[in-house]
């Protein structure tokens, strides 16, 4: 297989910071002056602000004309590689974000809705949310979803809050102050548990690639409030004992939460409810085709059983006859994890994606993501310096495989960070390494999903092969990468030094002077 590597080079605009741009007196937009009657009635604006609260000098913002602002941000967009090339950023399920719904969501019928409008004026978006709820219930077996959590981590937080309410209602919250998770669970599970006030019990991996049932039994007790776990994990390994796990936790009185971050490989294959879970979470900005926006706005759709539904954050969409309402009448509700009822524009996109795929399309996407991952794994393991986690586990992996460049690093001194910096020289987005802590040295985790063509994946593999060849023949080329980008790699660490970090331009100017 021969793949021609592209002669990619990033756009180089040498674009100044916006804070350095502009000329005093330039304007990027006007607002009208108050009408004569208005001004006559209100008096001068300044007099309306109590003296102690008046701003004495204007903010030091740039003064730019409208086209200059546009061109500046267009230049910055062109200096963003992102998904313009190939992005197999594992654990994030990079997939196509249909532009139809982007254009529909930009119109006033979504963009200019206020969350406090009377539900009679929101019937379209409420029906969409209601329908999406139904689709997600079918995919998970759960009874009710909330869309309030504004990301996957926020859904984990919602679960931790719901766990508090559930045990508090039984008078057991003080006793049940532990949440059990695994070292391979996404960091948001232990982190939100702790932020909700729980102690975290973390199970370590055993040779099979997941913690043992015995370790779980030893960890679970009358203090157990919940289990928060994903399956398969980011190494592509599915815990076959998950049903027994859930039984153990349920027998001890705890709730079981399925972090479905890795849903792409199992959608239509398993359902959270039938496995025994009480609640689960889908990331609409990953699995359901909603754009990531570089990190949100996102939705962690959180679904649970009818028994737990009373604790959900409100408001919830409910259908009565032909009418849809926002209902917030449960006295047991945990209230809010964020204001209002969700990133509703993203619900329309996720709903449209699910309708475009249908049951067959979703099953096929899951097939495709597992198929292409195993194809990719087979090819990557032919490349010098690349190994995979748990090499002795012979089974096919799910939609991801955790690889290691430990061998490459030992042989050549080239690290995964160096490889990331070199990949982008070929128009390929840097791969994801691994969440902390690393369970293999120099890890990386690609995920091809259903969007990327075989040609894309072959190109991506060819880039890694090229970099491996360079690492063994000319490691400096890799270590000094990138070479085809607008800037070089960041210099020696300054970002943790209080005298040098600068999170704003004004801090930078002060520290430079």
């Amino acid at each position, binding site marked *: 297989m021969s793949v021609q590597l592209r002669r990619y080079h990033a756009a180089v605009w040498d674009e100044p910071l916006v804070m350095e741009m502009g000329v005093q007196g*330039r304007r990027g937009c006007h607002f009208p002056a108050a009408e004569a009657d208005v001004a006559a009635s*209100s008096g001068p604006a300044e007099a309306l602000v109590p003296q*102690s609260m008046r701003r004495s000098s204007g903010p030091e913002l740039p003064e730019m004309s409208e086209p200059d602002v546009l061109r500046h941000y267009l230049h*910055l*967009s062109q200096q*963003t590689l992102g998904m313009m090339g190939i992005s197999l950023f594992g654990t994030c399920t990079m997939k196509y974000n249909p532009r139809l719904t982007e254009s529909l969501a930009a119109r006033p019928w979504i963009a200019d809705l206020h969350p406090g409008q009377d539900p009679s004026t929101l019937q379209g978006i409420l029906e969409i949310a209601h329908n999406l709820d139904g689709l997600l219930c079918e995919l998970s077996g759960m009874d009710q979803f909330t869309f309030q959590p504004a990301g996957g981590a926020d859904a984990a937080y919602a679960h931790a809050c719901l766990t508090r309410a559930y045990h508090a209602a039984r008078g057991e919250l003080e006793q049940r102050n532990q949440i059990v998770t695994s070292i391979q669970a996404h960091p948001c599970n232990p982190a939100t548990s702790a932020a909700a006030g729980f102690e975290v019990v973390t199970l370590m991996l055993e040779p099979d690639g997941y913690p043992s049932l015995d370790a779980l039994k030893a960890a679970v007790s009358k203090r157990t409030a919940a289990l928060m776990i994903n399956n398969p994990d980011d190494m592509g390994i599915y815990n076959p004992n998950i*049903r027994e796990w859930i039984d153990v936790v349920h027998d001890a009185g705890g709730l079981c939460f399925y972090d479905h971050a890795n849903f792409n490989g199992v959608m239509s294959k398993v359902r959270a409810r039938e496995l025994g879970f009480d609640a689960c979470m889908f990331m609409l900005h990953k699995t359901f*085709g909603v754009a990531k926006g570089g990190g949100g706005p996102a939705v962690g759709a959180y679904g649970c059983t009818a028994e737990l539904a009373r604790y959900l954050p409100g408001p919830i969409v409910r259908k009565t006859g032909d009418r849809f309402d926002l209902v917030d009448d449960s006295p047991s509700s945990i209230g809010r994890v964020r204001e209002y009822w969700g990133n509703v524009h993203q619900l329309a996109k996720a709903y449209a994606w699910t309708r475009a795929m249908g049951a067959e399309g979703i099953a096929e996407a899951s097939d495709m993501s597992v198929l292409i991952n195993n194809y990719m794994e087979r090819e990557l393991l032919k490349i010098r310096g690349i190994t995979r986690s748990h090499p002795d586990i012979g089974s096919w992996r799910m939609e991801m495989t955790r690889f290691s460049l430990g061998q490459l690093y030992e042989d050549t001194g080239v690290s995964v960070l160096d490889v990331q910096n070199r990949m982008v020289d070929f128009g390929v987005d840097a791969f994801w390494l691994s969440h902390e802590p690393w369970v293999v040295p120099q890890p990386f985790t690609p995920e091809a999903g259903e969007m990327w063509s075989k040609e894309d994946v072959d190109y991506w593999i060819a880039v890694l092969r090229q970099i491996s060849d360079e690492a063994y023949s000319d490691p400096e080329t890799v270590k000094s990468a990138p070479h085809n980008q607008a800037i070089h790699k960041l210099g020696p660490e300054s970002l943790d030094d209080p005298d040098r970090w600068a999170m704003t331009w004004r801090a930078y100017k002060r520290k430079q002077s």
Partner: protein
Amino acid sequence: MERPRAHPYMPNSVPAVRRQLLAALGIDSVETLFSQIPGDHRLRKPLELPPALTSESELRRHMSDLLSKNRSCEDALSFLGGGCWHHHVPAICDEIVQRSEFLTPVWGTPASDLGRNQAWFEFTSQLGELVGMELVALPVYSWGCAAGHAIRMAARITGRSKVLVPQFLDPERSAVIRNYCEPTEMSSHIEIVQVGYDPDTLLLDLTDLKGKLNDEVAAVYFENPTYLGQIEHQAESIAEAARACGAETIAGVDPISLGILKPPGQYGADLAVGSIQPLGIHMNGGGGLGGFIASRDEPRYAYEYPALMVSIAETTHGEYGFGLALAHQSSYGMREEGKDWTGNSTYLWAIAAAAYMALLGPAGFREMGELIIQRAHYCASLLDGIDGVRVHAKRGFFKEFVVNFDDAGKRVADIDAALLRRDIFGGIDLSEAFPQLGQSALYCVTERHTQADIRRLADTLAEVCGT
């Protein structure tokens, strides 16, 4: 399973490609690859989903049929605010956030996603100028979440576990803050103590505040303008009283007011939080929210931020670059030992806000602030002149104010329903959350409301209240 035609979103759904991949693995069926999953875990029936709409034209029709049932704030005349506001969104903000490069990426490297990282830094830098603070993090989910995190930061900084908050607080934000402060059963519970108000001005009662301040208080949280719209002119005294007790001062502010209102950094706030939604982001039914956290640039604060922080940094060749500062203290770096948690947030909106602040500049923020405050006062005085309608605290607010209908003998719910029939979205009904205000509503006037719009509201209210 092979489909008769390839799905438009799935390039490998061509049967020949699928067979090629299977052949490369030496297997006949993709089912082989799922051998890790025990048979009794498998769903044994096909999913029951409605038929796929694989053609864009069909899907568009379906979505349009649904969405056309909505009536937006462009269709009607809206006076809703209270945490999500119908400000003007410049066309350039829409253009920029719809750019595929900004719309779709996930993370990248400092070099390959330089442009987006620079836009983020321009967001924090410009917001820093508005609030008068040197440390601004990437945004969190919302104002309520920002306030919740800031309160938790203050509790960690001071080692104390009580927060004073105003009695008049948006019920939505308040409910978020309650979760962040944890129930009493948790060992890290933060007690929320409400501070009373002056019945005439609706501002914080300083005497009550001082009576409740002691060495157990981690922070005083107040808003400026307040939830009810008033400009909290006692800000400096509040911060001073808090400081005297060793408590942190957290100010919740509306960034769009800061062209004419004093920035929180200048009246003694240690931390500032607020919403970025007014800064060039459509309401999106609540999907336009984003929250910011800002503070002085001191390690004491920096070491407690849960949100990601982007710092300017030099490359090996002396170019500007941008990287994450103090990344190890986030939940990504330290799991449960990290500061609260972080994850996907509202970073696309930070870019809209960056473009917005650059478009407005100092003159734009001043002009808009002046326009809003004048039109809001004009509206208040017109409404106050209607029989049965009374504006509570007739001056001293920014864009929102409380309108009371007790003398009209009508419930806000009935008035809002009558307005709705006349294509007006009336103000937020306060009567349930704040019964002490009687039948009152929170009206919001922005730069979008013309004199004619305001007259139309006044005429309609006169009609509705008179019947």
